[in-house]
């Protein structure tokens, strides 16, 4: 296990490469998913407000 973690002495190069890649790939998908949820909330809120205006 520790052999795996030290990567034969190259841990300082291998793990940052994998770590930053994992972070970047996750964000590339997570950010639009969050934006999608936000947008739906915003649009629903706007629809409710429009309804109130028309029924005044």
């Amino acid at each position, binding site marked *: 296990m520790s052999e*795996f973690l030290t*990567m*034969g*002495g*190259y841990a300082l*190069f*291998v793990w*940052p*490469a*994998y770590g*930053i*890649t994992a972070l*970047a*790939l996750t964000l*590339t*998908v997570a950010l*639009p*998913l969050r*934006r*999608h949820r936000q*947008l*739906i909330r915003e*649009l*629903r809120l706007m*629809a409710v407000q429009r309804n109130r205006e028309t029924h005044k």
Partner: protein
Amino acid sequence: MDSHIELTWRARFHRLGSPPAVYRLASKLLPWASALCGLCFAVGLYSGLVLAPTDYQQGESYRIIYIHVPAAWMSMFVYVVLAVSGGIGLIWRMKLAEAVARISAPVGAVYTFLALLTGSLWGKPMWGTWWIWDARLTSELILLFLYLGYMALQAAIDDRRTAARAGAVLALVGVINLPIIHYSVEWWNTLHQGPTVTKFDQPSIALSMLVPLLLMALAFQLHFLVALLARIRVEILDTERRTAWVADLLAGDPHV
């Protein structure tokens, strides 16, 4: 009779590319594509980091190949998607193609950035330097600038359709950089090693190392698909916000 058939085909084609249809398809595909992508990454990472043997020259440092090469391949593949969809948008004024081009650019920029970064982290222990103005590295850096230039252009022009057309021209001119990247290691014999997988005769890489690499390449392809599906939904919802079908969508299913 013939014209009738043609009309129905055309109608079908239009429905296929219509925003609500694409939105629903993207929503339906997203969980499956994500699951498949996660599975590919799990198997690819396990086989690349654990099962694959140590390289007799480079030791364990070579394992960076399993992200470096897929990221570099994707940086070029996404550029082809950007140029082709941009070109389709330019010629046929298809809004969907314009949207695909627009949302592909930042994803392609991420792959290009990762290819450069992981290459740098691999170059330091193997070549003794983080960076060198080698032909392969320089042309890949130019690719990053092409993506960033495209994105800057999209942000600078207010009218989306004008921005799409201007961007498509830039993307198409930039295609010239792709063969330069690919052949750079053969045209200029500098520090970056030659091709190992895409040689026509036989790849100079052991099967036990090639299989994890191809699995990771597949995982990256699926990641691009997931990113594209997630982005196209936002794009469609945003541009179609005033339409009746979006109103129905919002009023109906609480989870959409």
